[in-house]
């Protein structure tokens, strides 16, 4: 099953709409509640990153019987140093973003803690792609 979402630039009131929708879908598919929690948290953090840093983007979700894969893509500023960005507490969020309660610098760590696979590809000035995979069956973890 596929679901495609558009993530609007700078619109924090909608940040979380895509992950909320996916959550409803996963509940209806009777996915284990703890797995849903991990998937939704990882997706939510990635979605907020797109809103906060990039100029909007897209998210493509693929639900298979054994896994959920989410690919987020944006044409934002890109991440110059991915390793640094992964550090807990490190944030490049603007003042405006922080005022809204975001930008604590835990986003990527949160995704890593909840996903089974996390792949980040980025080019400064071009954009970023984030791929998240969560397995639905124990055997593959």
């Amino acid at each position, binding site marked *: 099953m596929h679901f495609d979402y558009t993530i609007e630039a700078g619109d924090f009131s909608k940040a979380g709409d895509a*992950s909320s929708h996916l959550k409803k879908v996963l509940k209806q*598919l*009777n996915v284990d509640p*703890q797995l849903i*929690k991990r998937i939704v948290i990882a997706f939510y953090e990635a979605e907020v990153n797109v809103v906060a840093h990039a100029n909007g983007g897209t998210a493509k979700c693929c*639900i298979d*019987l054994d896994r959920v894969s989410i690919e987020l893509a944006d044409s934002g500023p890109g991440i110059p140093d991915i390793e640094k960005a992964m550090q807990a507490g490190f944030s490049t969020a603007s003042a405006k973003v922080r005022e809204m309660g975001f930008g604590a610098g835990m986003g990527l760590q*949160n995704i890593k803690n909840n996903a089974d696979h996390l792949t980040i590809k980025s080019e400064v000035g071009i954009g970023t792609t984030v791929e998240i995979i969560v397995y639905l069956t124990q055997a593959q973890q």
Partner: protein
Amino acid sequence: MDNRQFHHALTISSELCIGCSHCMNVCPTEAIRVRGGIAILYENRCVDCGECFKACPVHAISIGQDDFSRIDSYKQRVALVPEVFFGQFARNISRSQIKEAIIANGFTDVVEVETSVDLLLSQMKEYVKANDSKLPLISSFCPAIIRLIQVKFPALTQNIMLLKPPLDITALYCRRRLVDKGISPSEIGVFYITPCAAKIAAIKSPVGEEYSMITGVINMDTLYNKVYKHIRNDRKLHYDKPESTTLSEAARCWTLTHGEADHVPGRNLAVDEIHNVIEFLEKIENDEIPGLDFLELRACDESCAGGVLLTTNRFLVTERLRKAITPNKSENTEAEIDSYSDYLAKRIAIQAIHPRSMMKLDENMEEAMRKMDKAAQMLRCLPLTDCSACGSPSCQAFANDIALGEADIRQCIFIQKSREQTGELDPDESLEMMKSVWGSSKFYSNRK
């Protein structure tokens, strides 16, 4: 998964129901449909919040209590009375008068449910310290909320605090105290005066426990009528007793909004009214709000003061309870319940609460995907007006019902009109379809 049946205290009378659909449209878990002209309840989705009870214009929905005469089967007849019951009476009526009136109506003892609150609070403080990896912890107080979480937010069942609510602790205390005085357990009847349907459901089919200590339930409005009548007719007090409550301020206000949140240590939030709670739990499920320690969640607006079986306006009840004066406790007086602290503390835990998710389209994920695709396909043909003329509360609910084999797409009046135009549907068939949902009487203009 918990496979026991949920007992429901709410029943819809097929004789009284006029099939107006008001209840269906307010149900927060979409647990009601209209079929054959009457509202029917989907029991596995109902959480006993009572919104339907409030919405019904003809009082076709009742909250099933035990017959009042049942108390006569017991030698010791204890009335467990919540503070909000007392809050319903005007300030010139004393608590002693109310207690006396309750006894005059057949009980032998009157015990405030909140008697065990101070003990519970100290246990909750210990619990919070010992469980800091499961934050935010969610109070186990409101049974409608526990059921809501099981049905709609199954991932959060593990956040619920596994401690008995005051009602169960006080019931245990009452029984023990009477047994210690030499009364045989079979002679003790403990009756709870309930402000709502959810508390009844929790007693008849407990979540986290095998059975309840409560013998029976009396609806708060039933007792209020009896007591009020007695007080009105009996103008002088037979006994001149002083104001007789020893409840602490925390205990007195426990069942009001912020009653728990203000006393549990840490950063806490209190949310009341079921739609507010649903909105909030969506955010908690997404981990959108870090740093919260404890959540006090109540299904009713103004918490128990807004219980569906209260007669007095909930804001007045809240005002009276908040402003009541707690008598000063002298240092030497120990509340009788304190001597039972160890006994009660050992029995205060409840078992793990399991999810009972009703959001799923099927147990099997592949089947669920197939049904989801079918529902999505159906939804594309539907008008998205949520008019509920099909007998389901919304177009999305209707699409799911079709995918689950519980409804026919021709129940939708927009589909009917379009198909009548093209000749695919014959007007007689169309009318029969509508009658199967709404009953025949809605299709003739003369109603006596």
